[in-house]
């Protein structure tokens, strides 16, 4: 009887220590989690995509414009979002140049021009984030810039579990997620 209690506590203590070690690793070095939703198409799929998030970049350390990040949603901190940084502190950027209007009359023409005329300056300690799929993304355009303190990591790579385990030398559609802020040719 006493022996079985001893074995049980021993196993429990191994589980606790092992679990905590994994958790510490995940929150300091790298985390591998699932992402869902259409907001980052075509960079990330709407389902079955898993991302590697590098924790060195948490709280916004060393981030640059064009990086993909994981952050807590400011209006619902239980949810996490993947977005791309399109404005660093101090940058002067357009709120939403993607607003589509059609030249069907004077009024729309004005609105269309207007979307290229609404600037903001990203405040200190904040970043402006937008989803890669501008048509279906809830982001800074609706909840304003987000504090760097909500940033949990930078997405450096992703696996696609819709793809087969092995295809052209790639495991589960593994690919790097690059910064797409580049010199304009």
């Amino acid at each position: 009887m006493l022996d079985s209690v001893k074995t049980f506590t021993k196993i429990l203590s191994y589980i606790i220590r092992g679990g905590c070690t994994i958790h510490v690793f995940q929150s300091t070095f790298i985390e591998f989690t699932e992402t869902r939703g259409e907001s980052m198409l075509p960079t990330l799929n709407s389902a079955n995509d898993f991302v590697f998030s590098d924790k060195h970049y948490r709280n916004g350390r060393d981030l640059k414009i064009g990086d993909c990040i994981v952050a807590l949603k400011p209006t619902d901190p239980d949810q996490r979002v993947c977005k791309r940084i399109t404005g660093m502190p101090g940058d002067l950027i357009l709120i939403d140049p993607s607003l589509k209007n059609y030249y069907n009359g004077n009024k729309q023409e004005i609105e269309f021009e207007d979307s290229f005329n609404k600037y903001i300056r990203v405040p200190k300690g904040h970043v402006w984030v937008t989803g890669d799929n501008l048509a279906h993304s809830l982001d800074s355009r609706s909840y304003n810039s987000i504090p760097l303190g909500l940033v949990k990591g930078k997405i450096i790579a992703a696996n696609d579990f819709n793809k087969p385990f092995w295809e052209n030398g790639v495991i589960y559609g593994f690919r790097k997620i690059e910064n797409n802020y580049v010199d304009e040719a």
Partner: protein
Amino acid sequence: MAPPTPILSKDEILRAYKLDKMLKSPDNNCTLKSLTQFECSFDNGLYKCNPFKRIFQDCILSNGKRQVVEMTTSETNE
């Protein structure tokens, strides 16, 4: 929620940050940059994504500070 952020028109930022002078001055090292995002729609079981390119002037000012200004217009996106 971020601190209250005023919305400025192009004229206002041109004036407030003396942009014309900043972009033309040879002391400031400005490069033209772009960032491409997309507008996707679901069509016949497949996602169709049209690229949407945003243009930025990325300047290292003579005082060592960096200033990024978005230059996207309807013409740059055709």
